[in-house]
């Protein structure tokens, strides 16, 4: 975080860094000394996933960690962090603990995968930076193992994804839990109520994307507090026309200051939000943001992973030279994604299945566990 510098200086600094970025640098070329922020182009997911995925760091002087996220366009995204970036992000997460009123030296069970995706490790580092005792646990352990770990460590805080908490709810019950911190997926109100009732603890959601952390709820659970030293928020009209005022909904655009290898500036998140500067009763100053949903038509393939329909259709059409592709998604006992293609052949069927299965590691796992079925048919 570049504490103390004006917002304008920090944004210009970000653009100057972004110009050097091998993947999306061209987008920002010439805008380093912009007169008006509105002149700086928007960054979208396509810019991050369309280029080659090799290291974007031209000159590296320290360790770089590469994490992945599946993205909604059907291509995986790589998100690199230097050690310094991780330290910066950890400091922001330390601030999250202050907002959440997590006591110092809490025992935090970070029930998130600590590999491939960054969220698990970043959460663990953040809690360590806050001085907490961290117990990192991947989500592929059995229920009895997780239960044993919970009984043994008596955590005060559980940090995890809503779907993971749901899966292990019956073995997470522990009298010591004071806060349940959710992140990584949309938290539904019904889930919040279910978890609070079962675990006897406040559920506080953290909002972030792979490209950058946004904010976190305080115990009053009314919007996400965010620190403008770490992230700058704008809203743009969903139809692309006109400004968006306070309390009006628009597409969230973020600029992130704590990530030197991914100097995200004016990134269109695809999330629909509103922002307010009305002070929160908790006493934490600054604006808050509320999340309402996603822009455009998405298929929620499974919890924590949605795919933009048009992007998947475009990907398959382009890769396989198809004339037409349609999607149908049903959720019964298991999830079924039916892909109708023209022209159809068994070769095309195999190729489509292969492409879709390899969109994300999560998809492979869901298919392996029998929770997701992909069917390819002719039109």
């Amino acid at each position, binding site marked *: 975080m570049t504490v103390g510098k004006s917002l304008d200086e920090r944004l210009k600094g970000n653009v100057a860094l972004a110009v050097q970025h091998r993947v999306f640098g061209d987008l920002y070329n010439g805008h380093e000394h912009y007169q008006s922020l509105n002149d700086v182009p928007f960054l979208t997911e396509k810019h991050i996933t369309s280029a080659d*995925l*090799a*290291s974007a760091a031209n000159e*590296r*002087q*320290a*360790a*770089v*960690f*590469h*994490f*992945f996220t599946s993205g909604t366009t059907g291509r995986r995204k*790589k998100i690199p962090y230097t*050690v310094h970036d991780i330290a910066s992000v950890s400091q922001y997460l330390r601030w999250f603990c202050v907002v959440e009123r997590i006591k110092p*030296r809490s*025992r935090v069970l*970070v029930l998130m*995968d*600590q*590999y*491939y995706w960054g969220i*698990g*490790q970043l959460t*663990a580092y953040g809690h*360590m930076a806050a001085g907490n*005792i*961290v*117990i*990192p*646990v*991947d989500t*592929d*352990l*059995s229920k*009895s*193992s997780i*239960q*044993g*770990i919970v*009984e*043994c*460590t*008596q955590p005060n805080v559980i940090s995890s994804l809503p779907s993971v908490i749901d899966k292990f709810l019956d073995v997470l019950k522990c009298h010591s839990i004071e806060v349940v911190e959710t992140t990584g997926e949309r938290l539904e109100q019904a889930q919040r109520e279910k978890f609070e009732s079962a675990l006897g603890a406040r559920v506080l959601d953290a909002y972030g994307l792979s490209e950058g952390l946004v904010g976190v709820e305080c115990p009053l659970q009314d919007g996400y507090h965010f620190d403008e030293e770490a992230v700058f928020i704008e809203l743009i009209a969903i139809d692309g026309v006109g400004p968006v005022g306070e309390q009006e909904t628009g597409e969230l655009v973020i600029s992130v200051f704590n990530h030197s290898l991914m100097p995200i500036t004016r990134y269109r998140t695809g999330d629909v939000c509103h922002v307010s500067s009305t002070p929160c009763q908790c006493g934490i100053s600054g604006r808050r943001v509320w999340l309402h949903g996603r822009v455009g038509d998405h298929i929620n393939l499974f919890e924590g992973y949605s795919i933009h329909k048009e992007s998947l259709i475009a990907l398959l059409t382009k890769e396989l030279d198809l004339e037409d592709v349609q999607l149908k998604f049903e959720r019964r006992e298991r999830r079924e994604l039916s892909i109708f293609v023209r022209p159809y052949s068994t070769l095309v069927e195999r190729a489509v299945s292969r492409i879709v*299965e*390899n969109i994300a*590691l999560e998809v*492979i*796992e869901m*298919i*392996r566990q029998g929770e997701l079925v992909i069917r390819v048919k002719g039109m």
Partner: protein
Amino acid sequence: MVSSNPAALERLLSRAKGSPYYERIWRTFDIQKFDRLPPSDEDIFKYYSMSAINNDKSSEIAMIFFSGGTTHTPKLIPFSLNEWHARANYRARMYQNIGVSNDTTVAVMLPFGPWVAGPSAQAALAKIGCEIYPLGLVSSAAKAEHLLSLINDQKIDALVTIPSTLEFLLDAAVKSIAPFRPRTIITSGEVLSPKLRNEMREIFDARCYSCYASTEAFIGIECDTQHGFHYDPQEVLIELVGPPNRIGGRKALITVLRSEIVPLIRYALGDYLCLDFTPCDCGLSLPRAIWAGRQKGEIELAGGINVSTSEIAASVFNAVPQTRDVKIWLRTVSPGRDLLHVVLALSSGFEGEFVDLRRAAMQAIQECSLDLNDGLSQGQVVLDVEIHASLAPAEGKRKVRLYDRRQVVR
């Protein structure tokens, strides 16, 4: 007793004072009598339960990992930041000895939370300044193919992994006639078989280096001569005690000189070693520890899962008291996946449903070890239980036998 780091040893002994475990097993903390101090063993971790941690030194603990124990009473391994960094620094130096540098791009394909292997390797690589891809383990062909493609796309030139995962990747590369870019492979967690080592060399010109490490300690790493694990006596003191086994190894006790929260002093790892202090052809002056077997009854399964025949047998005898004999068969299902086939013979005169007993035995075995439970969930180990009636009387000595028929003995 020879320690090349007496100052560190003194500090460690002073940390042990006040430890209820060491106060119970030792009468003295005198460094002059070090080699006569009774060895410690994994019972030490029972004294570091969460309640004990909260009452004592909790201000130093930063992370907690696990190792072994049953699923209901897992063994806690706490770390302070100091000892975590010390471990990472040592491991980093040993990696650098085999050529890992800040130009190396490395995939860490080891188990992560709640196990220490992945985070520890990653921390060491970060100290060196590598590009790091934490990818976790592989336990299916589809995942192997996906990650192999990622490894090649990302131009990863080194792997830190376990042999079982390497087998999956090798299989995926051969079946799909895909390239295999990494040329340096550092393995740990399981014994690296000569067969796998040679296959990687001959098919992909990849050099494998095995590490000697456990959750409790990182000890050392092979060099190009592949004759033992180089280790630094300034970091780890290794003593050999007791009579030699049939291949000349003796019981190893390790002292991790920078351990803090759980001071590991003369700790019995359960392995037999030989030590070689003669100069190595590689040029490194560090001595070598040569692995010479493990304690009788200890099994290493695919995925680096350690479990003992006594753990399995005890859980079965408890769940199915009518059991007289236990035969434990180990077979290879496929590369990177083992079958643990447990055959129970019941005492004569038993009348009842085998189905219920089988279910009880399966559950008991799954829960007898946290490691094994994880391996079963991940698919690295497949468990099957078979029950037979026998003519054995209800009284008398029970027998436990192990038959290892795997293609790759670990």
